[in-house]
């Protein structure tokens, strides 16, 4: 709840610190990721999904969010890890990206932080799983936050080869 409160609070108060981005951080295993506060609509606990036929393996299915049907993406699987075994402690970040509303399944949300622009670096060019989904890296005091490129995470292009093959 505290995170949601903080989220609401920060959504109300526009960022007055210039040149800084407000980032919601969350983690999968030990890796820390972040996305802009603005794209998050709400944070929900894990709920049972309805499977989608012939969907990419990281699409966990669809859920009902007050009448809106949205797909849930398993971020661990999307980044090349195995499927998450969800517990009530896992959370869905409900995000709005390019007219699409989707859920991102993560282990837990950590915090909302202000990241000054100079702390953000381009993504490293090393070969690793899911590197194309990272748009940059923010270095905070003791942690490195990988900033996600959400359009790429939800990219339909990546999600559709099975669907195409089935046609």
């Amino acid at each position, binding site marked *: 709840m505290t995170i949601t409160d903080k989220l609401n609070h920060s959504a109300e108060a526009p960022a007055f610190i210039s040149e800084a981005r407000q980032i919601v951080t969350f983690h999968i295993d030990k890796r820390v990721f972040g996305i802009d506060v603005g794209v998050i609509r709400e944070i929900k606990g894990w709920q*049972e*999904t*309805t*499977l*989608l*036929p*012939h*969907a990419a393996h990281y699409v966990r*299915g*669809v*859920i*009902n969010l007050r*009448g*809106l*049907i*949205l*797909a849930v993406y398993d971020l661990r699987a999307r980044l090349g890890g195995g499927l998450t075994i969800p517990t009530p402690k896992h959370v869905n970040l409900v995000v709005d990206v390019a007219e*699409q*509303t*989707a859920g991102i399944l993560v282990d837990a949300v950590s915090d909302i932080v202000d990241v000054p622009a100079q702390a953000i670096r381009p993504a490293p060019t090393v070969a690793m799983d899911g590197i194309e989904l990272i748009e940059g890296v923010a270095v905070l005091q003791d942690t490195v936050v990988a900033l996600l490129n959400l359009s790429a995470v939800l990219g*339909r292009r990546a*999600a*559709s080869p099975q*669907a195409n093959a*089935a*046609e």
Partner: protein
Amino acid sequence: MDPLVELKAAFLEECDELLAALEARLAKLRDGSTSMDDINGAFRAIHSVKGGAGAFGMPALVQLAHVFEAALDHLRAGRIAPAAAPYELFLRALDQVGTLVSAARQGNALAAPADLVLDLQRVGLSAAPGGSQAPEAAPDLAIPAQSGPIQIALRPNLDLFRRAIDVRHIFAGLEAMGQLRVKTRIGGLPSLREINPQNCHLMFDLELESEATDQQLAEVLELQLGPDEFAIARNAAPVVAEPPARLIEPSPIVLTQSQPDPGPVSAPPPIPMEAPAPAPRIKAAAASSIRVDLQRIDRLMNLVGEIVITQSMLDQRLLSLPTAATMQIADGLQILSRQTRELQESVMAVRAQPVKNVFQRMPRLVRELCQALGKQARLQIIGEDTEVDKTIIEELADPLTHMIRNALDHGMETPDERRAAGKPPEGLVTLQAEQRSGRIVISVSDDGRGINRDRLLAKARARGLITASERPAPEEIDALLFHPGLSTAEAVTDVSGRGVGMDVVKQNVEALGGRVLVASEPGKGARFTLLLPLTLAVMDGMIIRSSGQRLVLPIASIRETLQSADTTIECLPGGHEFLRHRDRLSPLVRLGEVLNFGRSNDEQVILMTETDRGSQIGLWVDEIIGQQQVVVKSLETSYGAVPGASAATILGDGLVALIIDVDSIPSICAPAILALRTATHPTQLQ
């Protein structure tokens, strides 16, 4: 925003509708309709344009609309037979009105072309109808008192109502010819105890002030009444029974003057900002219809959808309570459920519009294309009252235009070719809409030469879309039409044939969550069918379980349900299963497996379904959970197309269930397609 500007914008928008209506009426008249409804409808449309144009200070539009209206009035007064009217001129005038309207929308004021105005003024002069009607054909309205009122006695037979005749239509027909007074005689009414409400005991005495001859009156009356049911008598006042042949040739000026200036708001001077002049007009219109922001209706629609879900949730919770306590509540819930359903249908009806709105643009397209291509074709429209969600209607115009173009350009032969093929020189294009199993089916079919498969195949091979060794089935060749960059026209024409068209149609329709099918028979014609969803619709669904997932099947697509234990299932090499039922072999598909949910091996129920291609498929599922009304929620908007599912819904427990698209099942399991093909040729199996 300036309220006047806003009103003017609304008027200009209304003009588009009026012009579309006018065009539709003209098209009907041109195609041989003699109905007063069509004539009056055309007249009213242009009259409204004129009225509004006057109110908003658009003199050019008023001028053009006025002469147009005057020309149409000749039709209305019977001075020109509908068959003899100059439709080319009318269409030209219609276009010009459209041009003026769209110019006005952009803030430009164009002048009405003088030659067109002149041509319209000459209507009725140049076209003096021949025959016995000639003397009455050009009456001089300046001296209308020549003949007294005509007395008409209507003495309908008892069975008038049972013949489905509404006397008001007769009155309307007469009213179009002049001023009508109606007296109803109720003396023949039996007492309440004896009355049979299906009998007509009424008699009418009419007085009509009109220039019409007895013959013209009789024509109108005989449409509905037998010769023994009416009598026409002339008032004694005028000396001559037949009006004398008038020698006065009305001049154009007389004609335009004789046109009664209609309505109080037809041509006031340009209104100052505060002037309330247009208000009464808008008020009057508001009584019959209002314009509502689509978003508001959508919000309403969503709310009702939520209520339906809550409703089924309550139903479910009720089941878990002790029976004694639930009896009374169950009654109430049942009523609530019926009311909710009604509410839902009403809200949906608000969004629905007849496909007529799009269809009525098509006759003209066909005419123009025929002229451009030197072909002869007639357009037949069926089911134009089918109602579809407004958003779909808006997206239909482009695909339909492409399909009709395609039919005329590629499918239809020239008159000579048709004669040589033993067909009537005039081709037939049929545009049909209907609602079938929860979706809208719109088809464009022609009786032309059909798809030239050889050429299509040759072209596809030349482009490397198909290898030389492949031998695609005829239907597969036809489906190549939708491939971008393939077109069968021998030369690129102005009309179509640039190889864009059918693939665009496919894209548009798929974006709406629909599909396009093609069927063709060489030498006999082709049919393109659009299958479109009724978005936001509610559907009667059967909820089943397959491989652990709850799924919804549209009731409309299920033919029957069978216990698989009672049936004979044949297994073919390759693992294809078939159901032998009613002396017919149908492919059997394990639904959960086909949808990639894993195999359950616990399938016990077979749902026999029929796809839109007419083939039957048995869907093998674990169990039937129940039957209920579900709210269709699009998956396209939030996620994208899902193979095998047309949409999703939310069940009473708040969880999502997919709605299965039965028609797409064959295409998502390639082996099943093969099996289907085999099954359609049963001889090979036996």
